[in-house]
Each structure stands twice: as C-alpha cells, then as structure tokens.
C-alpha cells in the first residue's frame, strides 16, 4: 500500500522529469531563418529578359512621405548582398541593365529591422502593477533584433488599380540578426529565395 502523499510525490517527480526533458526546439540562430517568396501567377516572367536595380539597399525606417531622409545599409554589406542577387538572376537567364535602358523589370532591395524587447518579469505585473506601484517596474530582460531582406520585382509597365506598382515577385529572407554580418547565412537565404522560385527561370 502507498500513502497518498508518497503517490503525489512520485507523480510530481515523474512529471518534473518528463517536463524537464521537454524538447526545446532550435539551438542556433540560423535555425530560425525563414525564406518566403510570392509571385503573381498571371504574370509572364518568361517573356522578360532584362532587369535593373539600385546600387544601394534602403532601410525601411521612418516615413519618407513626411520628409524623413532614407537610410541605407553599409555599402560593403550591400555590395555583397547585391552581388549574390545578381549571381542568381544571371543563372536564371536575366540580363542586368541600367535603369535608363528601359528594363523589363525593376528589382528593388530593402531591409527592415525590428527590435523586440522582452522581460523576465513576473507576467502578472499587468494586473497588480497598478494597485501596488511601490513594487517597482518590471526588470529588463534583453532584446533581439530581427532582420528581413526584401527583394521585390515590379514591371514599370504594369500598375495596379490603386495606381501603385504590382509586386510581381517578392522574396523575403528573415532571421535574427547577430552582431556581425554573416555573409554565408545571408547568401544562403538569397540562394534559397531564388531556388524556390523556379518560375523566374527564363533561359
């Protein structure tokens, strides 16, 4: 016979053991990298040949319509990213031309960074914090910054009903940014975006 207390302790022990080995998911930052692509299925990519792109990668930040100046990612990093994009476009049969040469499509590249701040604080704070202000504010925990590289292909001849350009193809490479620029990781993401877009192949 076993007492209820011993049984409760045994059950609690087994539960703790099993919860303790609960799978934790990703181990490395690159395990969180995601590549997303989207295309307009009524657009005839195969009939196109040339593309043009800017020589800089703009940061999606601020509000340009309100007069903010555009910001760009450092030239060295941009050059590496753009070279990798060119390499993939060339392999798919596209010719890069100047924007003044009436290209079939424009390929714009942008980056977007968002920082998420997280707290280790007691999550009941939202409820009791107002009643017990003397208890202080939640403790700061840390933050991580997510970066997304957007590649968008538009046809200057085609405009949507609202007057805006139609995104014929979009490629997004999303991941958690580390302190240093990791060319291998970024290149892998760019390659993946083109690799999962076989309809871009025109040769």
């Amino acid at each position, binding site marked *: *016979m076993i007492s209820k207390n011993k049984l409760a302790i045994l059950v609690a022990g087994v539960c703790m053991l*099993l919860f303790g080995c609960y799978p934790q*998911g990703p181990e490395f930052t690159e395990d969180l990298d*995601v590549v997303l692509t989207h295309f307009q299925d009524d657009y005839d990519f195969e009939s196109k040949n040339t593309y043009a792109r800017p020589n800089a990668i703009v940061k999606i930040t601020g509000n340009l319509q309100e007069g903010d100046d555009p910001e760009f990612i450092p030239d060295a990093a941009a050059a590496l990213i753009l070279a990798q994009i060119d390499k993939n476009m060339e392999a798919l049969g596209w010719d890069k031309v100047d924007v003044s040469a009436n290209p079939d499509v424009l390929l714009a590249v942008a980056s977007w960074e968002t920082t998420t701040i997280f707290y280790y604080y007691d999550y009941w704070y939202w409820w009791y914090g107002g009643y017990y202000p003397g208890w202080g504010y939640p403790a700061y925990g840390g933050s991580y910054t997510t970066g997304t590289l957007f590649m968008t292909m538009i046809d200057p001849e085609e405009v949507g009903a609202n007057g805006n350009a139609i995104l014929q193809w979009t490629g997004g490479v999303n991941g958690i940014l580390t302190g240093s620029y990791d060319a291998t990781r970024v290149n892998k993401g760019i390659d993946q975006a083109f690799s*999962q877009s076989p309809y871009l192949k025109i040769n």
Partner: protein
Amino acid sequence: MKKIFIILLVAAASSTTYAQSLTALQYSMGFGTGDLSDFIGKPSFRGFTIDYRNLVQPNVGVGFDLGWHAFYEAKASDVYTIGNLSYSGKQYRYNNQFPLLFAADYYMQPGESVNPFVGFGVGTMYSLRNTDMGQYSLKEDAWNFAIRPEVGILYEANPGMSFMVTGKYYYGFEAGDLPAQGYFTLNFGFVFTK
C-alpha cells in the same frame, strides 16, 4: 457512445460494493497514426498515464485514465507551398495529447499473480499542436471526443504492489482545428492496490 458513457458512470457510482482499488502510474511511449503520424513521424518517448480503477466486481474495475503524451519532431529545412506562396526553413513540430477518460477494465484472472485484462475508455482528449518556424508559431487545438481500447497484464510482485504492461490506442474524433488524432501507446509502470 452515449450508452457506454452512461454505463461507465453507473458502474462508477455503484463502486462501493467492493473496497479494492488500483492506482497505476505508467511511463508511456506513443506511436502516432493517421494525421498525427503525417505531422510527426517520430514516436514519443515523453509521456505518462495515471489510471485509477475501483473494483466493482473482482473482475471489473471502473475509474479514470489521465495522461500526457508529447510528440516532437524537428524537421529538416524544407519548402512548403500554398498556392503561389512558398516559405522555407526548419519547422519544429509539437503535438501534445492530454486524454481524460472514464475507463473500465475486465480482468481475466482475478486473484492470480498474472492477470491479463482488456479495457475500454471514453471521454475527451485535449490535442494541442504547435508548428514553430522562424520566430512564428502556429497553434491549433481541439477537445476531441475520444475512445480508447486497451489490453494489458497485471503482475503482482507483492501484496499491494504490482507491475503493469499495457497497450492502448487513443482515438480522438475530428474537432476544433484538427482532424481525428490517433496513436498507440506502450506503457509500463507500478500499480498500487488497496
């Protein structure tokens, strides 16, 4: 199913005739079938069940079956396509099953040291599925109406202490965000009798 449920409830309510009861704590390994197997191909090695049976007859026990079974698989990087949208990366898939069942067993050799039995359970099962990819997580869940046939063997090592090996099949019918969820479990553990 309603009839089975009522029979189990009536049996449980009339369980004061005999004083003996069994409480089993078992470690469970799970093997998904159907949709669960399609979602997570790997077996589960994280699970347990707590079974309680009141012996309303020397060869009939009624009570409950509670459990937790965690299925997990880290998928290799792959491309997933929906229409003209494709996304790629590593997916981390979790499927947690929490059966909460009324249960009844029929013991074939009551009083013997080796006592095979068959059982049936009916109740509900909470299914919680998470698909994690990048920094995003898709949650799907359901409270399934569930049934559970069972076979097992009780081995009495000492008075008051037995060992148990069971095979169970949990089947939760389509509900909530999920289609039917089914899985086999192989369980072994201790049984405390009083």
